[in-house]
């Protein structure tokens, strides 16, 4: 059995364990154990991957294994990883692990909650290890659908509306994607021979350019919906603000990365000619995403909305960087995915914890929290500083790479787009510092705040796990960017 398949099997076993548990209280313990093992396995995979590479294995994908599934259609369950997927797997396992602890005080329908949450995680892990477009698509949809129940049942505010909007928009995206995948599949053997869904196989042939012109935009937009591509990002603020804490963490932290990952792994990698032709359209759209998201965050009053818009901005930056199609910018894009995943998960976790104490998410109704809950306060400041790109934290590394790479293009169009996108840094600073000033500093707003307890052990565990990741990437970026850089080369070479 290939070690990668464990990433799918462990969550499924965890679900089985939760189902078998008689006591609903045990659901969270089982989930924590399962996801703890998952975390260990993920890092074992990172280690194995690094060892293989150090031993001089230069294959594009490592740990590949393949099972025949639908033979006549040439559909295989094929898994394998390169540096990019390894980074995403590590990110996912940290966020899911933290997410389980962030839901430690979940009261209502515990079993069902953890089952849906872990089912979602199964989809995400499966997506990142898949090398076959069919299984990739299967896992993609599997990751989206539990969101409906997670937001609809355990959410807050206009949860039913938000859940329905999110599900329908994302499934709409996957509908476009499905057509794109058919287009790729039925053009995967232009010279005759067997059609295939295998990404590596398809990357070796050239899909006819006429087909690419049709199916590249469908695929890119299909994934782009999940990556909050303007103007299809509107599910994100509503969805994130209504979702329960752990779900916001997972969704903004990991699920939105599926979009970016799919955009370059499928759309751009397999249809490079059309990608080059049409990149300009999407560069304009993503530049708008980046700036619009940041401005959106400035005017919001609700902490979750602020963070949701900030996610639109940051994920827009991921797509923006991918479209720059050079090694530096694309490396930056992947680092940004990991960095934003950790950072936004940290934000949402903190918002959940603060809301648990103050019972409001409106920033104007709070103040002086730093004095009463210093641990959470400091964590919030760290998250904020990472978000606005302070050197030493992960956001800086990512944005440096992205903007350096983007500016490498000598032509006016790319440079103007880059300059527009760079302005988001300033706007980000405005909304982050504004929140920190109102929320954390100043006099204690309410005398009842004195009764607040600072973070409990499981809250600290959540926060420390995430902050460790952020600081590690910020201080020692070479480890992460090293494994990403070499894996990005085949994709960049194809795009050149």
């Amino acid at each position, binding site marked *: 059995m290939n070690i990668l398949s464990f990433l799918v099997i462990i969550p499924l076993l965890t679900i089985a364990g939760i189902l078998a548990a008689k006591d609903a209280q045990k659901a969270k313990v089982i989930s924590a154990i399962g996801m703890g093992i998952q975390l260990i396995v993920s890092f074992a995979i990172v280690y194995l991957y690094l060892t293989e590479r150090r031993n001089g294995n230069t294959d594009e994908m490592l740990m590949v294994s393949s099972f*025949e*599934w*639908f*033979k*006549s*259609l040439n*559909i295989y369950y094929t898994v394998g990883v390169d540096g990019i997927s390894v980074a995403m797997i590590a990110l996912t396992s940290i966020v899911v692990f933290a997410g389980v602890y962030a839901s430690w005080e979940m009261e209502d329908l515990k079993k069902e909650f953890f089952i849906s949450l872990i089912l979602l995680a199964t989809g995400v892990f499966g997506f990142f290890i898949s090398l076959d477009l*069919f299984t990739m*698509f*299967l*896992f993609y*949809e*599997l990751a989206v*659908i539990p969101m*409906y*129940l997670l937001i*609809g*049942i355990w959410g807050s505010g206009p*949860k*039913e509306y938000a859940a*329905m909007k999110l*599900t*329908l928009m994302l*499934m*709409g995206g996957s*509908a*476009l994607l*499905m*057509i794109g995948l*058919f*287009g790729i*599949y*039925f053009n995967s053997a232009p010279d005759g021979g067997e059609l295939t869904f295998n990404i590596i196989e398809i990357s070796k042939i050239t899909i006819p350019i006429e087909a690419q012109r*049709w199916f590249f935009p469908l695929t890119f937009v299909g994934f782009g919906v999940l990556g909050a591509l303007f103007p299809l990002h509107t599910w994100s603020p509503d969805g994130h603000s209504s979702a329960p804490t752990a779900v916001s963490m997972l969704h903004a932290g990991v699920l939105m990365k599926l979009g970016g990952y799919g955009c370059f792994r499928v759309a751009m990698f397999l249809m490079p000619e059309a990608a080059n032709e049409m990149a300009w359209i999407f560069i304009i759209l993503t530049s708008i995403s980046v700036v619009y998201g940041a401005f959106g965050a400035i005017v919001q009053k609700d902490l979750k909305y602020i963070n949701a818009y900030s996610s639109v901005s940051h994920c827009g930056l991921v797509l923006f960087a991918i479209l720059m199609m050079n090694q530096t910018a694309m490396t930056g894009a992947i680092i940004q995915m990991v960095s934003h995943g950790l950072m936004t998960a940290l934000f949402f976790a903190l918002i959940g914890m603060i809301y648990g104490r103050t019972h409001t998410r409106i920033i104007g109704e709070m103040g002086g929290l730093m004095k009463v809950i210093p641990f959470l306060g400091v964590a919030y400041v760290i998250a904020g500083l990472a978000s606005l790109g302070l050197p030493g934290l992960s956001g800086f590394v990512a944005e440096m790479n992205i903007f350096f790479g983007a500016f490498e293009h000598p032509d006016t169009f790319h440079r103007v787009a880059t300059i527009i996108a760079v302005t988001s840094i300033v706007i980000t600073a405005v909304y982050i510092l504004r929140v920190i000033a109102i929320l954390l500093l100043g006099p204690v707003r309410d005398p009842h705040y004195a009764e607040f307890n600072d973070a409990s052990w499981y809250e600290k565990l959540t926060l420390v796990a995430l902050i460790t990741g952020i600081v590690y990437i910020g201080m020692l970026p070479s480890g992460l960017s090293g494994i990403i850089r070499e894996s990005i080369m085949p994709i960049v070479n194809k795009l050149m």
Partner: protein
Amino acid sequence: MSPENFLMMRHELVLTLAFLTILIAEVFTNEDKKEKFRSFGIVLFALVTAIGMLPAPEGSLFGGMYQAGGTTTLMKNILNIGTLIVLMQSYTWLGRPENRDKIHEYFLLLISTLIGMNFMISAGHFLMFYLGLELATIPLAALAAFERYQNRSAEAGIKLILSSALSSGILLFGLSMIYGTTGSLYFPEVASRVAAMPLTLLGFIFFFSGMAFKMSLVPFHLWTADVYEGAPVNISSFLSVISKGAAAFIFIIILFNVFPVIIHTWERIIWVIAVLTITIGNLFALRQKNMKRFLAFSSIAQAGFFLLGFIGGNKLGMTTVIYYALIYIFTNLAAFGIVALIAEKTGKESMDDYDGLYKTNPKLSLTMMLALFSLAGIPPVAGFFGKFFLFAAAAEKGFYVLVAIAVLNTIVALYYYLLVVKAMFINKSEQPIPAFKSDFFSKLGLAICIAGIVITGFASGLFEMIRNLSYGI
């Protein structure tokens, strides 16, 4: 012709035998043992289904009137499985006092319509096809009017028989034109003489309309919702799944075998009808509050999805039509089974009544959710695989626009399926449907459906088997 040759007709013969057994057994059943007749009938039919699975000889009988092959045997087995589930789900309902004296009638009618469907599928001649079709339809009308003291059931019966008679008339008219232009009613002979002449095409269009009635394709669907709502729920589920499946099977066989020459005509017709059926079925389903009507319109839309497998005339298309029919049987019967069970136990049929169902009946709600997700085509349940391959079949022949319309329609469908999920899991209710216990056969029927929904998709072997038995033009 040696007696062994009759073994080719094994499905029909075994069903006839079961029919006679029930007829005779009924005579010897005491009044007070009538209740037990239900179990007897179900076990007997399970036996029939099992016998059907045995390998069968292939060939043709009666000078080509009757044809048996791997494909037809597979189709008949699928119909048998579906009927078995319907019978299991009818168990509670048949136990009603007013149904006590009619239990054997129920079995007899259901078996005779199934015999008709089997003959229809095995037809090698339009006359045989028509005989089978009528044998399949007339008992169905009796079944729809089974609760004859209730106005709406009687109304459903009369609506079904009238619209069937009309559609059969249209179909016969079409056949007469085809006979007039080709001079034969044998499938192979017609196939070799069909040409794109105006009269043949006109005949084909009449034939097509007749079949569209049976499959309840838009714009020939108007009888569907009324009949489904009025008929007993189990009959509605039989109509929406087995009857529709049988019509789809013979339709695809005839299109592929008899009319391959005029594929360019019928693929255009199917294109339009598919778009209309899927879209209108979905749009009407959006507004339904009665669960039976809701499922009726959703099943109209589903019938439209079947057409995506027809349109290319390719091997993958036939494979997916059969494969999807199998999945659809498990899926839709699970949904109908739950609606039937709830209607039987509490008399509630409205979507609003399902509010908060998860709190009181978690297992039923989860099964319903699985079924709805499968209908919507959400992984990892079987409906996803079925839909994906159906769309792939149409995409293989380049019908990308049609696929796009169908795929976008699945989003509309997802919306209304989620409405039911929302009612069960999210909405709160002052008076939820109370928790209840179901009997053994209802549970078994649902368990088979769940197993089918979960396993059929992953079981690639099944898909490959169906593919080996399918053919394209």
